[in-house]
């Protein structure tokens, strides 16, 4: 049986780090902060490893099926006997897998940051935030209650906000952090309403209960939910769709992806951890967590998920080909890869063979975490070295940064899907799953994989080959690759990126807990691998040496290139909606209305009282005879009233 204490400690250790460093870091443990944070995370990672081993190999499997365990559940806030927010821990294949990913990448980032962030003024704060993030992410992963998930969902959002805005005196960082928070917040609204809808019909927030009640089409709950419709769709569909919106926001799916490229304003290790490996896949994880509901009760939503994922994947890939900021390229690449995971879920269905997409998605999540974190950390090393994010400032760095160069290459090969690197295996599975159920998506995915190879190697060649185009200052050269603490994570991750593909993932993770047979056809891989190689060669041809081919190509593509370069003007659209519509058409009128109409009415009441008072002053004329006329007049009037009128 799972050990609740051990599992609970996994998130609590980083939390302890957050509290410790947050309260006392700035004053008392300025220098030791990084070590403390890293040590705590190391503990956490070891516990996660232990838990994973325990689960997968000791007690998790009962009768060939991996079970779900809830070793701990504490009522946090009870709304009624049935309905309550619980704080619990759920142990099942995907949560354990995520535990591993999160703790491992987080540990890598912790170690890496020891070098990367050295000398920062807010070094302890940085580690505190990392701790907070890790805690929140682990809490999210382990959530046994959908509201608990929402809570940690928000917490990872705020951690992301804090870390993106870590360089708070940079206006662009502040703007990016705000954007990230607000956009995801908007999506979370969907999540929240989705929760409300689902919980209303299922009568519970608890994942197990909720899923159990909503996945049997014969149950009263489902019948009720299907019976109540809104705009032609059943309540259940709405609920699931809204929940997916939450996931899409966090996972930067089109069109809610606009925050992700900007989020690269944060320190690079943070991008590696949050905006590549862990938080952004929370949306995928959410869909996976509720997969039974999506696949059994609301297939329509699942189809939407598939399409959103596919569209995101290709759009992001196209945009990535045109960007010049290396972190942005990686960001779009992340978005593209998450699109893969998403549509993999979308093309999957529940149980057995048909659940391949699910397994593939999780697999890709796992491998992607490795190589994308590696890419970011490598990029971090480069940036650390040249003090610039722009590709034009880089070139020919393979000699100066040999380890970085090597690991980066591994990662590029992995993401490009070159066998036998990790990305190859997971991507193949995804393509297979798509091929089996939705050909259109399959073709999109195929093209995307070619594009992926192209833009990754564009990046690779521009950075490490090409001719140096910018001046590297002496100061920049001084610290070289950044020492052991920065290189160790790179190497470890490179090992992961290279070898993770050999893990028999289907054994462990599947929709129904039973082992899934991987049907690996060499012939099927031919097309994607060939496309990938073509992409690499194209990149080699265009970017290995400085030349004007890219410019010519861009010119020949014309409008398409321009649109892609400007990220298809989605940012501008958002800007228009917020600045012009929300601020000018709603906010400003509301404020004006309040000041001038509502408040104006109040003031008017007061002012008119004074005016009336001024107007009637002539009755108090000081003329005693006029007073007497009033007197007599009043008497007569009253007499007439009470003798003749009201009698």
């Amino acid at each position, binding site marked *: 049986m799972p050990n609740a204490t051990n599992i609970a400690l996994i998130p609590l250790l980083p939390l302890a780090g957050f509290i410790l460093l947050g309260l006392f870091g700035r004053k008392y443990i300025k220098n030791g902060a990084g070590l403390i944070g890293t040590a705590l995370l190391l503990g956490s990672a070891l516990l996660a490893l232990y838990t994973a081993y325990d689960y997968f190999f000791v007690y998790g499997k009962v009768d060939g099926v991996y079970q779900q365990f809830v070793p701990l559940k504490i009522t946090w806030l009870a709304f009624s006997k049935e309905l309550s927010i619980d704080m619990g821990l759920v142990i099942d294949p995907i949560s354990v897998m995520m535990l591993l990913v999160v703790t491992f990448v987080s540990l890598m980032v912790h170690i890496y940051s020891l070098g990367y962030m050295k000398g920062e003024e807010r070094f302890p704060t940085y580690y505190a935030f990392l701790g907070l993030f890790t805690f929140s992410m682990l809490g999210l992963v382990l959530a046994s209650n959908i509201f608990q998930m929402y809570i940690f969902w928000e917490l990872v959002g705020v951690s992301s906000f804090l870390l993106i805005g870590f360089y708070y005196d940079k206006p662009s960082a502040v703007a990016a952090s705000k954007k990230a928070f607000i956009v995801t917040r908007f999506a979370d609204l969907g999540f929240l309403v989705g929760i409300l809808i689902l919980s209303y019909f299922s009568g519970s927030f608890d994942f197990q209960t909720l899923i159990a009640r909503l996945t049997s089409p014969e149950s009263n709950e489902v019948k009720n939910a299907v019976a109540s419709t809104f705009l032609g769709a059943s309540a259940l569909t709405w609920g699931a769709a809204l929940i997916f919106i939450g996931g899409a926001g966090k996972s930067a799916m089109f069109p809610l992806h606009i925050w992700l490229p900007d989020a690269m304003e944060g320190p690079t290790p943070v991008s590696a951890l949050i905006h590549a490996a862990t938080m952004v896949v929370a949306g995928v994880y959410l869909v996976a967590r509720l997969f039974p509901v999506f696949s059994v009760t609301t297939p329509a939503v699942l189809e939407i998920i598939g399409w959103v994922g596919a569209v995101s994947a290709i759009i992001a890939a196209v945009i990535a080909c045109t960007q010049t900021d290396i972190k942005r390229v990686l960001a779009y690449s992340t978005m593209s890869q998450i699109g893969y995971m998403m549509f993999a879920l979308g093309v999957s269905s529940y149980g057995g063979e048909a659940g391949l997409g699910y397994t593939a998605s999780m697999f890709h999540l796992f491998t992607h975490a490795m190589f994308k974190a590696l890419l970011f950390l490598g990029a971090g090393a480069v940036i650390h070295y040249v003090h610039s994010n722009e590709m034009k400032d880089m070139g020919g760095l393979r000699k100066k940064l040999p380890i970085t160069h090597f690991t980066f290459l591994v990662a590029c090969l992995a993401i490009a899907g070159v066998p036998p690197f990790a990305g190859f295996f997971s991507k193949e599975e995804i393509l297979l799953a798509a091929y089996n159920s939705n050909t259109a998506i399959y073709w999109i995915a195929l093209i995307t994989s070619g594009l992926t190879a192209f833009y990754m190697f564009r990046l690779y060649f521009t950075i490490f080959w090409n001719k140096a185009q910018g001046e590297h200052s002496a100061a920049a050269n001084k610290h070289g690759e950044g020492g052991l603490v920065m290189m160790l994570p790179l190497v470890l991750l490179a090992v992961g990126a290279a070898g993770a593909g050999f893990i028999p993932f289907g054994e462990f993770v599947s929709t129904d807990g039973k082992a899934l047979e991987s049907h690996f056809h060499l012939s099927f891989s031919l097309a994607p691998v060939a496309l990938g190689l073509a992409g690499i060669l194209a990149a080699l041809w265009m970017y290995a040496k400085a030349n004007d081919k890219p410019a010519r190509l861009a010119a020949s593509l014309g409008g398409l290139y321009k649109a892609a370069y400007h990220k298809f003007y989605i940012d501008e659209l958002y800007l228009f909606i917020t600045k012009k519509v929300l601020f000018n058409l709603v906010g400003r009128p509301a404020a004006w209305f309040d000041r001038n109409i509502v408040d104006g009415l109040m003031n008017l009441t007061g002012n008119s*009282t004074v005016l009336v008072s001024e107007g009637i*002053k002539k009755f108090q004329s000081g003329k005693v005879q*006029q007073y007497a006329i009033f007197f007599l007049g009043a008497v007569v009037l009253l007499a007439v009233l009470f003798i003749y009128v009201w009698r």
Partner: protein
Amino acid sequence: MNELLTLMKSELVLTGIIFLLLFIKIGKGMKNETLLPLVQVLLLVNFIFGFVLNKEGRLFGDMFYTTSLIAFQKNILNLGVYLISLLCTDWLKKTPHLPEFFLLLLSALLGMFFMISSANLLIFYLSLELASIPVAAMANFDLDKKRSAEGAMKMILSSAFSSGILLFGISLVYGSTGTISLPEIAGRLDGSTLQVLAFIFFFAAFAFKLSIVPFHLWTADVYEGSPIATTAFLSVISKGSVAFIFMTMLYRVFQPLLDTWYPMLVILSIATMVIGNLFALRQQNIKRFLAFSSIAQVGFILVAVSSNDHMGSTAVIYFVLVYIFSNLAAFGVASVIAEQTGKERIDDFKGFYKTNPFLSWILALALFSLAGVPPTAGFFGKLFLLTAGGARAAYWFITVAALNMIISLYYYLRVVRAMFMDKNDTPIEPLKISAPVRLGMIICGAGIILTGLLSWIYDYIHSL
């Protein structure tokens, strides 16, 4: 004879003081500095004496009657007069005709006593005149000021006019009922239209004395012109006494005409509150300001009067008690300022708190009480007035009344604002507060706070 002494003891004591003053005046005379404390002590004795030997009974063939409630009412007035003698010390010391002033004042008070005790229209009329003619003379006591004379002229002429109308009403009542004894009238009213007309004439005179809109127009002018002691007397003692007898008249005598006077009260009460408030809103002279505010207060009193039951009369008496403390405190402060600096404008009060915190607090307390803000007694007073008014389930009526409290709060706060908030480079100098004034103010302040919190006072009045 013994009965005469006990039942009429308030009047007799007062008469005694009046004659004492007369003898002092006719005899050697006395300096104001010695006379004033003497009068103050006498009035205090009078006030204390009002609490003992109270019996119920009738005299002079039912022309005069007294009950413990009436005795209490008289004592409220005694208290008010005593406070005036303390608070207006500054002005009183300066007046060259102090004995005459008190002679007139006490005569008027005597008239009020008789008025409250009257069980006969003749007594009522005579005492009403006794309560108003000397006051007109008092209004002219700033002999050198034209405004004072003008105020006095307006008062005497208006009041003569109103008593003419009253008399015509009385004559019609007499003609249609054949009696001037109040209890008998109550039995003989049959609600004929002539009686309604007579009642309206009658009512107009009350309305005049109480300053009910639109019979109120003399009020502000007279208040402004008169010496401050007279104004205080008029606005508090006069109003209070008339309010008492007004209720008695309506409840005991004109009960058969309830259908007439209830709607009339409602209409006039609303008019009074609204108009009083609207005028008070923009007054600059503190006395005029208090005049209009007192008009508005009368509107509130009418709310309770309209209840036509014991709760209403209790509320009115209680309110008058509270009102004496509050309004006299305000007049006391105004008097100190006016006598020492000659300033009567509210704008002159700016920055007053800086230089005179004690006076400011007293005035603020008084104004809060007038506005009906807790924990002052005015809150309870107003609330009970409205409670009584609510007894007849006229919610819209008490709603209007309650909303009027907002306007009144506004202008009371205007004075507070001037004192506490507004900046002023030349605020009023720190003023000397003589011992009697300070005593008076402390009594008023204590009264304002304690009358409400000591709830047995209300219960006591209710039990009378």
